């Protein structure tokens, strides 16, 4: 009886706390972002997702980095140099520090969030040139920043989810909490730059939109293996749609 209880307790904690068994330090995923209009592709930018270990005197954290850089042909028209970073707990991917530094066609903005999960607050600092603004925002427990969320999606156990099953979570972006939701839409095999992959097909949306009714504007494809890396993404924009295609993947965990 005791053993069963211990086993049950272990099982309960294991399912409660999504353990990180998909994301490792040293992983580098490179994507091409392109604009697709009636099948004619136009490459726009290169998106890189990188992870690394960061050591402080007290702990080792996982550093998640997301970069967007326009291709050279665009640099004279609309130059983008974006950097999104998140420092997270390597086991649960809970964020502690989030930094956003964007430079898009001459417009630049800096944002920094410091998470305090005990008091459920986020200290935000926004910088635009010499102008600095500080604000403290209240959050719910389990609110992640955008970069950590991107990785957190990979910790979900899609194998045990039924087609049409939904998962909700909150994301803090521009100092606002946004309710987001993903819907598992089954498996699909895609041929990608890193080979033919069986993927979990996922629709992303806010919890208000009804994905099943046919609103499949934003979709993600994650490989149906232990790594669950994103290989393809599709986003609806006014004319045509944006695409994110994997170019290379190195240093994956499993």
């Amino acid at each position, binding site marked *: 009886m005791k053993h069963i209880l211990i086993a049950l307790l272990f099982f309960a904690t294991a399912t409660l706390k999504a353990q990180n068994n998909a994301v490792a330090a040293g992983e580098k995923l490179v994507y*091409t972002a392109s*604009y697709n*209009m*009636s099948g*004619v*592709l*136009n*490459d726009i930018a*290169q998106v890189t997702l990188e992870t690394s*270990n*960061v050591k*402080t*005197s*007290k*702990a*080792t*954290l996982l*550093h998640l*980095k997301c*970069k967007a*850089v*326009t*291709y*050279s*042909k*665009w*640099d004279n*028209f609309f*130059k983008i*140099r974006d*950097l999104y*970073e998140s*420092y997270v*707990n*390597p*086991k649960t991917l809970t964020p*502690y*520090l989030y*930094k956003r*530094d964007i430079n898009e066609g001459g417009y630049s903005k800096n944002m920094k969030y*410091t998470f305090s999960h005990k008091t459920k607050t986020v200290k935000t600092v926004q910088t635009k040139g010499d102008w600095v603004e500080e604000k403290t925002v209240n959050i719910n427990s389990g609110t992640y920043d955008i970069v950590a969320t991107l990785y957190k999606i990979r910790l979900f156990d899609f194998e045990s989810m039924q087609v049409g099953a939904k998962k909700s979570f909150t994301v803090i972006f521009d100092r606002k909490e946004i309710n987001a939701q993903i819907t598992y839409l089954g498996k699909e095999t895609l041929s990608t730059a890193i080979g033919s992959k069986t993927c979990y097909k996922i629709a992303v949306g806010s919890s208000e939109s009804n994905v099943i009714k046919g609103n499949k504007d934003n979709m993600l494809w994650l490989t149906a293996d232990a790594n669950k890396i994103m290989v393809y993404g599709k986003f609806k924009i006014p004319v045509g749609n944006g695409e994110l295609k994997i170019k290379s993947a190195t240093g994956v965990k499993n």
Partner: protein
Amino acid sequence: MKQLFTILALITAILALILSVLPVSNLAIFPAALALIFGLIAFYLSKKAGEVKKIIQFSFLLTIMALAVTTYKAIFNTTEVGNTETLVEKEETSKEEAIEELEELNLEEIELDE
């Protein structure tokens, strides 16, 4: 009718040429195809009327130029990332700042690497 198609052909041909020199050169295919269709209709109608204006031939010339530029760019231009030096610098300073910042936080609840 003849005039309408001549104007349409000219407009689409110019649009195709403009698009072909922009980074979205692949999109020039759409107006170029339209320019060819309009141009052919205008040409056919004018020929029936007995007089083919030079402007129609001019719009064909523009379209061919646009298509040539687009094809050249699609075949010979490789897409590569531009100058990222400043971004790399920014990444490094950002990381240093972040480490300082993280030192100040109370992170004792995180276990160290086994």
